[in-house]
């Protein structure tokens, strides 16, 4: 029982970071109908910016997270300016955007290699965060609580923004039909900027959180998470924000359990395999809906 709870705690903190990453991925798909293959690169850059704030500038995590949020958000907006906006104007096929964003991702990875080197770097042990508490044999690290807390806070804020604000309504309307949005006076371009900013900002924070959790930051960390993000998005139902939240948590838990009960070598095989089984049962994903009902 203790082991089970321990795995759940570990799975939730890992899964929460997957969820935060995948939400942006699914939003860009749901709102703009794009697969942004460079979403992992903002995640990786967010991790480095957070690291630079903590390690080089000596800032507390409470400042490093917002810094990563803003930087990654802006980096993500640059995708819209450089790649997706011009392609939309030309009414290009969305596969072109997929390839162009892959190129962007590679460029950003190369740039990170040049600046930060190819080796894995670590967050300095941050005083308070290294502590833990034990409840009935289950060890809960302060870091896990902080990571989970930040993830839940961000997801709650995003859900509120989408459901209750004017901008959220605009985003959901563009997801339904850009044309209807324009008829109502909503600028699709500005909505795309907002979507890319939010998606990138969340990915950047997820980068910091995962960098802390695994205590490792490298230029290639974006590639692994991109595949997991894609899995989570499909598992949750393409374009569904609640689906990405639940899917992320689920994938995190599945992974931790397969490491705990099977072998770490089989982690991804079991993770992806189980997702496949779930999709066989529910092909449209957990929160999968018809195209029209997305977002």
């Amino acid at each position, binding site marked *: 029982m203790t082991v089970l709870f321990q795995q759940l705690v570990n799975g939730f903190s890992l899964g929460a970071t997957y969820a935060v990453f995948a939400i942006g991925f699914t939003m860009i798909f749901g709102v703009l109908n794009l697969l942004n293959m460079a979403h992992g690169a903002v995640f990786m850059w967010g991790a480095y910016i957070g690291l630079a704030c903590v390690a080089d500038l000596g800032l507390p995590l409470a400042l490093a997270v917002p810094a990563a949020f803003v930087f990654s958000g802006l980096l993500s907006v640059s995708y819209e300016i450089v790649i997706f906006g011009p392609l939309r104007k030309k009414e290009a096929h969305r596969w072109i955007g997929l390839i162009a964003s892959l190129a962007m991702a590679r460029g950003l990875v190369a740039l990170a290699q040049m600046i930060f080197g190819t080796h894995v770097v670590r967050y300095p042990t941050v005083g308070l965060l290294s502590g833990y508490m034990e409840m009935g044999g289950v060890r809960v690290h302060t870091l896990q609580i902080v990571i989970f807390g930040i993830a839940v806070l961000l997801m709650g804020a995003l859900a509120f923004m989408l459901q209750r604000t*004017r901008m959220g*309504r*605009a985003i*959901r*309307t563009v997801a*339904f*039909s850009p*044309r*209807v*949005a*324009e*008829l*109502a*006076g*909503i*600028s*699709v371009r500005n909505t795309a900027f907002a979507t890319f900013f939010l998606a990138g900002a969340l990915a950047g924070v997820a980068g910091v959180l995962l960098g802390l959790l695994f205590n490792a930051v490298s230029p290639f960390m974006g590639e692994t998470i991109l595949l997991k993000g894609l899995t989570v998005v499909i598992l949750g139902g393409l374009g569904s924000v609640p689906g990405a939240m639940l899917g992320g948590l689920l994938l995190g838990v599945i992974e931790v359990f397969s490491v705990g009960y099977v072998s770490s070598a089989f982690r991804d095989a079991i993770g992806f395999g189980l997702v496949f089984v779930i999709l066989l049962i529910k092909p449209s994903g957990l929160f999968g809906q018809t195209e*029209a*009902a*997305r*977002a």
Partner: protein
Amino acid sequence: MLEVREVHAGYGKTEVLRGVSLSVKEGSIVALVGANGAGKTTIMAAITGHVPVSSGQIRFQGENIAGIPAHQVVVRGISLVPEGRQVVSPLSVEENLFLGAHTRGKKEAAESLDRVFSWFPRLRERRAQKSGSLSGGEQQMLAIGRAMMAKPKLLLLDEPSMGLAPLVVSEVFRFIRKLNEEGTTVFLGEQNARKALGMAEYAYVLEDGELIMEGPARRLLSSEQVVEAYLGGAGDGI
């Protein structure tokens, strides 16, 4: 109020409108009738900025609005009730209505909401429901209500009768007339020529991207050519 001058427009290399000129006087109801595929929706889309105008002008209140970004058209005072209603099904009834007032202030939006609810008490009852759960007629009322939330000077309607039962169609048309009596200018694209001509003051007949006839609606209603092509024969939509 609205003047379309020699407009050529289309999708990509396909030209749909081949030199269309028409005008809508302030305070009037003008109908645009024609078979499916004649180009009625394209004219609406050219006015709302969703189809590029390759030549010609679209003048609204004296200004050429051809080529302005689509999301700025509503600010000028033109609202479209699109073909097939296009209510945003994941949004609630109330959210759909507020969407129509996106460019206006909170207070103005709340006032307009009250006005729309007074026209359609059924929408008030269902304000919290997802709009996808409404019946076809209710969705049409919602689509019109949403367009009116912007307090437009000119209301464009694209096939408002499509897919609705005859009784509901009559209800929708009665309501359009009421909006017009309260001061909104109406430009109506409609396959159901009999209904449209019965309500409008002036009308244009569109065929293959060109206007082939125009005149006071009553006169068109009794014109042999129109009766044959759009009212009696197989060409009649509904």
